[in-house]
């Protein structure tokens, strides 16, 4: 029933971008997102689009897959576009009733929509090319300086990877419970909103019970293997920069540099 939902949208293939160190990809994405706010001219947008297309081509993720990343934000996109289109004051070229379109509005709408689309596409390219585990690993290393101010970075990263690890298990469990309750005649599809929420109780309660039971078992298993947090812990595959990673950093800074210096 809900097995079709996919969370974490890793696209498995063997590309240059996939092999980059997750830290490069996180930092690069971060830089790219910031860079999107440094310009306000057509040439800037073209340059940003060209850069994205270049990286996307290198990543070998099909464009149709990338476009799927936009689906959850379509509503927001349309909403902001409409706001900008109708409520930007300026030189009017079309009016009908209270609707008034201005050149400034059209320009703003196009640019803001482009900016949003690039923002979403840029960050989804990161999740498409990096497994959730690599992401948490990378984040842990990038944020490790914050340990100096006593932030439990390792523990936060551990929590993140455990949570990610459990998503497919819990989805499967939900599917099973839904079917079992359906076998007892439960109905999840009809009724008004309140009725439907009530109908969900026979799913949520067993799901919470099992999640808590699993958490307890996991904690016990970690304890039995003497897990005691991040102190003195080493990694099986420690993150290490290679030449391509450094080059990728260089490319990112080069891109941002050009944008800041040459593009208005």
């Amino acid at each position, binding site marked *: 029933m809900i*097995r*079709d939902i996919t969370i974490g949208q890793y696209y498995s293939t063997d590309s240059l971008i996939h092999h980059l160190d997750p830290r490069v990809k996180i930092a690069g994405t971060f830089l790219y997102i910031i860079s999107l706010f440094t310009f306000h001219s057509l040439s800037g947008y073209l340059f940003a689009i060209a850069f994205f297309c270049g990286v996307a081509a290198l990543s070998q993720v099909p464009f149709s897959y990338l476009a799927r990343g936009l689906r959850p934000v379509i509503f927001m996109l349309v909403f902001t576009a409409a706001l900008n289109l109708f409520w930007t004051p300026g030189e009017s070229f079309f009016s009908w009733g209270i609707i008034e379109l201005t050149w400034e509005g059209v320009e703003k709408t196009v640019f803001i929509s482009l900016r949003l689309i690039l923002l979403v596409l840029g960050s989804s390219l990161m999740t498409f090319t990096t497994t959730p585990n690599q992401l948490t690993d990378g984040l842990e290393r990038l944020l490790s300086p914050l340990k100096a101010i006593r932030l439990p970075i390792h523990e936060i990263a551990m929590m993140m990877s455990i949570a990610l690890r459990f998503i497919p298990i819990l989805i499967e469990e939900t599917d*099973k*419970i839904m*079917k*079992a*309750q*359906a*076998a*007892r*005649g*439960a*109905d999840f599809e009809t009724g008004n909103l309140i009725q439907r929420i009530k109908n969900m*109780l*026979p799913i949520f*309660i*067993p799901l919470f*019970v*099992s999640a808590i039971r699993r958490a307890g078992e996991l904690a016990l298993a970690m304890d039995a293997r003497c897990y005691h947090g991040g102190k003195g812990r080493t990694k099986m595959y420690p993150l290490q920069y290679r030449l391509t990673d450094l080059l990728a950093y260089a490319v990112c800074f080069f891109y941002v540099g050009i944008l800041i210096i040459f593009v208005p």
Partner: protein
Amino acid sequence: MSLILQNVSFTYDRGGSNEKQALTNIDLEIGSQEFTAIVGHTGSGKSTLMQLLNGLEKATEGKIYFHGRDIYEKGFSMKELRSKVGLVFQYPEHQLFESTVLKDVAFGPRNMGWENLQIELNAFQALKEVGIGEELFDSSPLALSGGQKRRVALAGVLAMQPEILVLDEPMAGLDPAGRQDIFQMLSRLHQERNISILFASHSMDDVAEYAKRMIVMHEGKIVLDGPPRKIFRYEKELKQIGLDIPSVTKVMHRLRDRGIEIDDSCLTVQESAAEIVQWYRKGAIE
């Protein structure tokens, strides 16, 4: 003549990236008052087949008839099918959710839209049948022991008055005493209430002891169907598809391999003991 599958195939995620054919051209008839075991190693399609029987999954090809009516026909009541063909999942105790045992068991009947009195009566009766005493009716189902939870979950399906009870590994994770309890209960339901029982199992000893008919599945197909006594003769064929035969039968097969003249189709310890004693006496006379 109650449940007939005709040329049924089932494919998961049809047309998607994880397309997987789980069942291929299944022809099967589950009669009334049967006690049938489905065996097959993990991924052979047992669970999928069971979910087709009460309409939880819809066959991608083929037809299913319940009492002569096509269940995919417009106007066929799935609700009624689900009450008549009771499906008990693996580890059914994981689906308990109500605040009291009685309420949880009444969940199914309530969904059927029956009258309050009948709901309560059915729940009461079902709990009695699985051997849960009245003193536990008002306790939380989560506070019970593992074996008790499983029986309450079973009662939850029984309370819908099924004609066919389909169980996916009803004994998984229980201790020997618990397994025996469940089986004795199923036998009693089979005999006293004329419920047809269909259960999946990995334990050939259980199958040999209780089932009257046995269906062997392999890679989404039914490869053998018949009384366990006949099917366990195919030791080599069963081994090829990753299945075993009851330990007692194995001993008898080995004895026969050594040239000892005995009937090697025995399924239970008593049977084989009698057979061996008989052979021994015969030898003594000669």
